[in-house]
């Protein structure tokens, strides 16, 4: 059953054009000109209860804008949103009870309160029962190690501590849905790992539906089975991560360093897609041709100094999808 429904969602921002100089300032007093920025153009997806979905896209793609519309603090310019049966912007406070939100870029805890008091405040705000509060705190303290900084004011927490406090705070009232906007940003490897373990666990054990945005593909690979890929406010791909990997997994990249030669490199079933000095990056389809065949071809005309074969990382696949679109690169190598 879908718990989140997004249909032809749109968001335009009107940005007042800033005129320069005195004349410009006067002009803008009389008549202000606006530029329209289409942050989200037309996005649709549904998410089922208990799913954990990676919401991926390059900077400025419209991820945070989408999340904000799901929380109700932004009104869509068009389309429909429904979160657990509620239209978020129409009933923001009711929606708030169903969702937990973490914005990695900024805390939602009260800056000048000790962490524990922020939690106590949230307990009252969401009317969490004493027993439930104690249970949840015990769990979060246990998994996230909150006890080392519970009495420290939020403003003095390190980024990693703050993020742990923030995610615990977002879950105190047992929301069925969790929005995580870059929950691992700025964390070190250990802290990231800890965060992932925690997210995985609450998704499994509490059956919480999670939407996660991140620029770290490890997060996605470890946590999500499905990803929604967006770019310039539009959906580029929506489906299983394994499909993407299989589809593009056939592509390998061969990197060769050649000795100085006047001849250019010509290949039958590989594509040179980048070259720098005497280093060449060659893309080939593993099902059509083996690496050794390509190497043989090269050695006929050139001397190889060094070579490596690169496995495709989900990261590089995604950056290619951003650049070229999902459909266009479904045929990986064109001869």
């Amino acid at each position, binding site marked *: 059953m879908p718990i989140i429904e997004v249909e032809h969602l749109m968001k335009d921002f009107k940005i007042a054009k800033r005129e320069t100089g005195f004349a410009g300032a006067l002009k803008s007093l009389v008549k202000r000109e606006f530029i329209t920025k289409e942050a989200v153009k037309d996005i649709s997806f549904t998410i089922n209860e208990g799913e954990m979905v990676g919401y991926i896209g390059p900077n400025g793609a419209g991820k945070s804008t989408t999340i*904000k519309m799901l929380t109700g603090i932004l009104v869509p310019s068009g389309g429909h949103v429904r979160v657990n049966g509620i239209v978020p912007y129409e009933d923001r406070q009711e929606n708030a009870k169903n969702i937990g939100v973490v914005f990695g870029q900024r805390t939602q805890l009260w800056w000048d309160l000790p962490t524990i008091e922020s939690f106590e405040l949230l307990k009252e*705000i969401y009317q969490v029962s004493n027993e439930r509060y104690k249970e949840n705190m015990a769990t979060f303290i246990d998994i996230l190690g909150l006890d080392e900084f519970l009495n420290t004011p939020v403003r003095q927490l390190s980024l990693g501590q703050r993020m742990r406090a923030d995610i615990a705070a977002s879950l105190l009232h047992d929301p069925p849905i969790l929005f995580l906007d870059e929950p691992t940003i700025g964390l070190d490897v250990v802290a990231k790992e800890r965060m992932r373990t925690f997210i995985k666990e609450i998704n499994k054990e509490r059956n919480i539906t999670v939407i996660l945005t991140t620029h770290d593909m490890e997060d996605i690979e470890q946590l999500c089975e499905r990803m929604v890929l967006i770019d310039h406010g539009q959906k580029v791909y929506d489906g299983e991560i394994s499909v993407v990997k299989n589809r593009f997994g056939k592509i390998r990249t061969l990197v060769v360093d050649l000795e100085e030669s006047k001849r250019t490199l010509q290949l039958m079933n590989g594509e040179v897609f980048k070259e720098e000095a005497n280093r060449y990056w060659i893309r080939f389809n593993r099902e059509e041709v083996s690496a050794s065949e390509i190497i043989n071809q090269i050695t006929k005309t050139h001397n190889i100094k060094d070579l490596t074969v690169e496995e495709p990382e989900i990261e590089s696949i995604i950056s290619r999808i951003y650049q070229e679109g999902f459909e266009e690169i479904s045929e990986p190598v064109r001869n």
Partner: protein
Amino acid sequence: MFNYRVYWTFAKKSFLRSAVYRFDVWSRLGSNIIFLLMWGSIWTALYAGKEEAGGVSFEAMLTYIVVSQFLTGVNGAGTPLWEIQEKVRTGDIALELMRPFDVPLRYLFADFGSVAFYIVTALLPLYTVLFIFMDVALPTDWLTWVYFIIASVIGFLIRYCIEMSFGLLTFFLVETGGIEDIFYFAMSLLSGSVIPLWFFPDWLATIAIYLPFQGIYYIPNSIFIGEIAGLEILTSIGIQLFWVVVTYLVLRLIWSRASKKVIVQGG
């Protein structure tokens, strides 16, 4: 839907937080005393040994200043203008839209907490001592005390609505310097906090009478020293009630515009 417990918790938390930031309390108390001494000596100099001026005795005038400084302390313990502006600029207030409570109300209750702490631990002890040792005229009948307390509370609410409204204007302005100037000017002069309205030139007094600021200091102070007495007390409190309603409606209007701006334009 008014969830009393949430707001009560905000009051309680900010009461406790004030206890943590004790230095803040002491430094504020220090500056309060300095301003009291300053205005006390200015008025002593202005009276220059005369028993009375403008129909008001020196003793009553001194009492006016002491009470006024007390109320300044009370009003100053709430969230100051710059902090509201800061919270608008950083987006803290915008994010609070996501919570199941009313934002202006929650700030009011947080202020109740910090103000209560400041009154109990600093202002009351200090001003009790002052009233005992200084030559000031305390109201003799209890009803005056009651009216004074009512007028002070309404004055506090008027000030809260005005300060919050000015703070929320930050949502709409790139530069807020002018706003601050107007606010502080009105708060110190037009409110009668340091110069009672009866010393104003006629034109300025007329302006001040038609503005809400006099309800913050001038009315409670004057009730305290008996300069506003009898039936006039009730009409003055009536005027205050009128202004508290008006300023509250203005605050709600600005807040609804501000939240609309946040949810449409993203802050």
